């Protein structure tokens, strides 16, 4: 019975981490759009290349934040949550 409970904990942590990383789609699409527009802008005005590139990198980094939130959640679920949850389970059994 205990093995089953621990197995459920580990399995759902891994599933949760996988589901959380679906959020990676959003920043991917967003950054792709940003880079596409930056390429268009450089094509139109090649002399602005420097400032367009720096602005694009800034925007990409800010757009990446949501993906990184998901990453932090996934990392917590994989490395931190199973140990904590198993500890809680052991304490409730005692």
């Amino acid at each position, binding site marked *: 019975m205990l093995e089953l409970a621990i197995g459920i904990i580990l399995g759902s942590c891994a599933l949760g981490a996988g589901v959380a990383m679906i959020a990676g789609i959003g920043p991917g699409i967003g950054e792709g759009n940003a880079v596409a527009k930056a390429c268009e802008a450089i094509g139109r005005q090649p002399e602005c290349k420097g400032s367009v590139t720096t602005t694009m990198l800034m925007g990409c*980094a800010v757009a990446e934040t949501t993906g990184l*939130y998901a990453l*932090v959640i996934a990392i917590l679920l994989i*490395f931190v949550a199973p140990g904590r949850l198993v500890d809680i389970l052991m304490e409730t059994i005692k």
Partner: protein
Amino acid sequence: MENDKQKFRLLDTLYILMMIVPIVFGIVLKILTTPQSEGIAISGAKIFFTINLPIQNLPITESQIHSWLVMIAITGLCLFLTHGLKEKADTKRQHIAEWIVENAQKLVIDNMGDYFSGFAPFIAAILSLSAFSSLLALFGLYAPTSDVNVTAGWAILVFFLITYYKMKCGPVVYAKSFGEPVPFLAPLNIISEFATPVSMAFRHYGNVLSGSVISVLLAVGLQGLSSMVLGKLPGFLGEFPLFQIGIPAVLSIYFDVFSGVLQAYIFAMLTMLYVAGAFPADEYFRRKAKKSTI
């Protein structure tokens, strides 16, 4: 004359040693404290020892020690570059030092305006500390920026700076700024106030940590691949790391060098934008002009 030259050379060697010795110290410490034959594993910062304090114990971790090493190395670099300055630049190092200072001032004044020109040393310090912390991973050491506590510390510092500049026109203007554009959005404004440091800390730490996690996964995968291909061969050939040569270096260039330096730049840039954006410039200068006329 001869004596002065010798003294100059001696100080130079001292500063160069100050740059190199911390890195060597970190590598030696890592070799001494790494437990034997655990294989490749993903782990957080190691805790060396804990200082007992009344409210909460203070653990001294790898990330703290490595931050200090980076700080000492940067101090050595600065002292080396600014050693023996002359009125008219004629040495390479003085040209480099002047280039760095001019660019830092230009960056700050371009992004924050003339009022904040005093911010150049702070921004340059944050930029160099963050960049060199990430680059520490090139020596195989634990990068302090992949610990959320380090980046959260910097982000809290930036949060206090933002609040200080918002308070410049007194607490009434500060309190009013939460009721914009409509008063019932005040709770959301308060949440977004606290989301700023959280997102800054997570952005920097997440980027660096994800790079190191992917590098470790790749190393494990390549080890499995080469043992699968060569594992049947006898003796030394069976353990030869065929695929681990060169391939991880390509990822390291992206994750350690490009991503680390880019994140440092973005952290400094966001600091400048947030602090400059928090300062109610119109109101402040209007009041100042009013005061000076009276």
